[in-house]
């Protein structure tokens, strides 16, 4: 006699579960909270938390509160795969992160198989060239950024030769492979091609090699902590040539860690709280108020990622995982429509982005934006 009741109860609970899952918008952030990517990951996490707080203060998404759960990937591809699988098993509506390109490449097939959108912060060109319709960037890809840097080296820095210092991981290797052809096209000679290791602590030998290469400029493409260590080592060795880089060289965290050694560094910046855009500046102030330090580009990416989910969900007017990815693909999100996106952004079909970017310089320990560069396809 008991079994029909038990079956009925089980059925009722089974039917109720999806409804319970829909009571909130559950986002799982698989992110580097320890290991070599801890600085970047912590910024992304804080940005995502700030976005969730802002959205919930205004009534959530379609009236449902946003919940962001963070799982530490330890900057380890294996742990990232496990975290993404856990997110899928726990019915995440969308996955945020990670930041490092290697762990992204190692884990994105899992979210693709589950047809769940994964909104990441990596910059390596490769992972959006594999036909995965569920992967979305929050930053410009290297293939978009490197031509701008080569042009900057040629026209502004007037460099005839460049020493390239890069980190030997997916991010660094992708950047190196993207910049070398651009330098060649611009007629700039590569005076030294120096690989370094992720998590490397001692950069004295690399700084000496750079100094002895006697290039007109140095292109530095390392992760944040290593960028700061390299800048310090270069200053200790008396390297006086212009240091040019991308967002990871001019970020707030690098400036804080490198101290005086960051002054004079120049380059291309995809996102910055100092950019002449009210949304970005306001975000920067509120982030600093809440966390007590200046957000780097990864903090902005975390904030944008949650707002990309918000915009697409409100656009499709339902919590549909697959529909979320379909809505994001090919979309243009404007600040007028969704202020939390902070800067007008076009999402290409492969998950790459097109938007304005900036040329910046570090002056007296602060990032100063000199020029606003237009979208590649305005």
């Amino acid at each position, binding site marked *: 006699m008991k079994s029909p009741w038990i079956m009925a109860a089980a059925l009722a609970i089974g039917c109720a579960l999806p409804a319970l899952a829909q009571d909130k918008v559950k986002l799982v952030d698989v992110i580097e909270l320890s290991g070599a990517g801890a600085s970047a990951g912590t910024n992304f996490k804080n940005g995502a938390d700030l976005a969730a707080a802002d959205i919930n203060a205004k009534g959530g998404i379609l009236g449902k509160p946003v919940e962001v759960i963070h799982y530490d990937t330890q900057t380890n591809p294996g742990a990232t795969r496990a975290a993404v699988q856990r997110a899928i098993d726990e019915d995440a509506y969308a996955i945020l992160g990670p930041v490092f390109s290697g762990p992204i490449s190692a884990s994105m097939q899992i979210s693709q198989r589950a047809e769940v959108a994964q909104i990441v912060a990596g910059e390596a060109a490769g992972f959006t060239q594999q036909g995965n319709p569920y992967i979305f960037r929050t930053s410009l890809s290297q293939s978009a950024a490197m031509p701008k840097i080569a042009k900057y080296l040629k026209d502004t820095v007037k460099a005839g030769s460049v020493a390239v210092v890069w980190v030997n991981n997916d991010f660094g290797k992708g950047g190196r492979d993207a910049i070398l052809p651009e330098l060649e096209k611009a007629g700039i000679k590569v005076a030294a091609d120096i690989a370094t290791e992720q998590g490397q602590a001692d950069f004295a030998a690399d700084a000496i090699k750079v100094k002895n290469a006697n290039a007109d400029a140095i292109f530095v493409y390392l992760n944040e902590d290593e960028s700061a260590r390299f800048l310090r080592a270069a200053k200790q*060795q008396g390297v006086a040539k212009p240091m040019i880089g991308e967002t990871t060289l001019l970020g707030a965290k690098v400036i804080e860690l490198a101290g005086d050694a960051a002054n004079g560094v120049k380059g291309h910046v995809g996102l910055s709280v100092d950019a002449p855009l009210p949304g970005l500046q306001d975000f920067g102030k509120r982030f600093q108020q809440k966390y007590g330090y200046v957000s780097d580009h990864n903090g902005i990416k975390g904030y944008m990622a949650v707002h990309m989910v918000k915009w697409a969900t409100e656009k499709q007017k339902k919590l549909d995982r697959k529909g979320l990815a379909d809505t994001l693909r090919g979309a243009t999100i404007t600040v007028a429509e969704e202020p939390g996106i902070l800067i007008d952004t076009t999402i290409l079909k492969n998950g790459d982005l097109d938007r304005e970017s900036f040329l910046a310089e570090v002056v007296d320990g602060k990032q100063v934006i000199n020029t606003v560069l237009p979208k590649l396809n305005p």
Partner: protein
Amino acid sequence: MAEFVAFLIAGVATGAIYALAAIGFTLVWQTSQTINFAQGEFVMLPAVLVLLAVKLLGAPLWLGALVGILAFILVFGLGFKVVVVDPMIRHGVLPLAIATMALSTIMKEGAKDGFSAEAQNFPSFVPTGTVEVLGAAVSLQHAAIIVVALAAIGLLQWFVGGTRLGRQMQATAQNPTVARILGIPVERMVLLTFVINAALAVVASVLISPLYLAKFSNGETIGLFAFIAAIVGGFNQVRGALVGGLLIGVVDSLAAAYVSTQYRLAVPLILLVAIILLKPEGLMGRKEERRI
């Protein structure tokens, strides 16, 4: 030539740090016949504690440094011996070695959770700049590391060999039973060894953190290289740790310069294997025989 000299001096500076940490390995080995696998974390933690003291107390750097360093020496000099070594050594050296592995994880995770997972800026007491040595520009930071580290090691050597207290310490390390019969306060000597180890770790930490930044994971690299240095130089000799540290630092720097950065770690490891095969007691170590 100038380029080679620059690489050499950078290597000597890094090697001096490895030597300070490697001496810690030999001191603990001599007094407890075990390996302190938390030695790298001993070098990582003082810088973190200094920054933590500055943050929590809102104190100026000098006061934070004083509080952080004293707290470290108290907890990881005195405390390490009383809480970890004394209770575990009765059960043999293997449980103690395993306990130091646990301590290493606790120190690393404690620094991460109690302070920060992110790297932090650590101020340098040396101004930025270079001096010319044999045509090569040598950074003042590297020059200071070499001078201070070698001075600390020289002071230790003088203390051990040239003072009554030091000779008592040495006697305790060589044969505690005979030392006790001769009236040497063995327990106090062992404690002194652990305090000296903690003090050397503080020196290494303060010297290297302005370059490596203060981060919970710094001990991994330093601990590994110092361990290799101690084996290469000779685990039972302080001067062996000095030679091993300098050699590993120079080999690492030259490997990064003339082999490749990717394979720089492999070169000291190859040297380690060669030493184990050809001179297992280390370059400066003395042979030890034990009855099992």
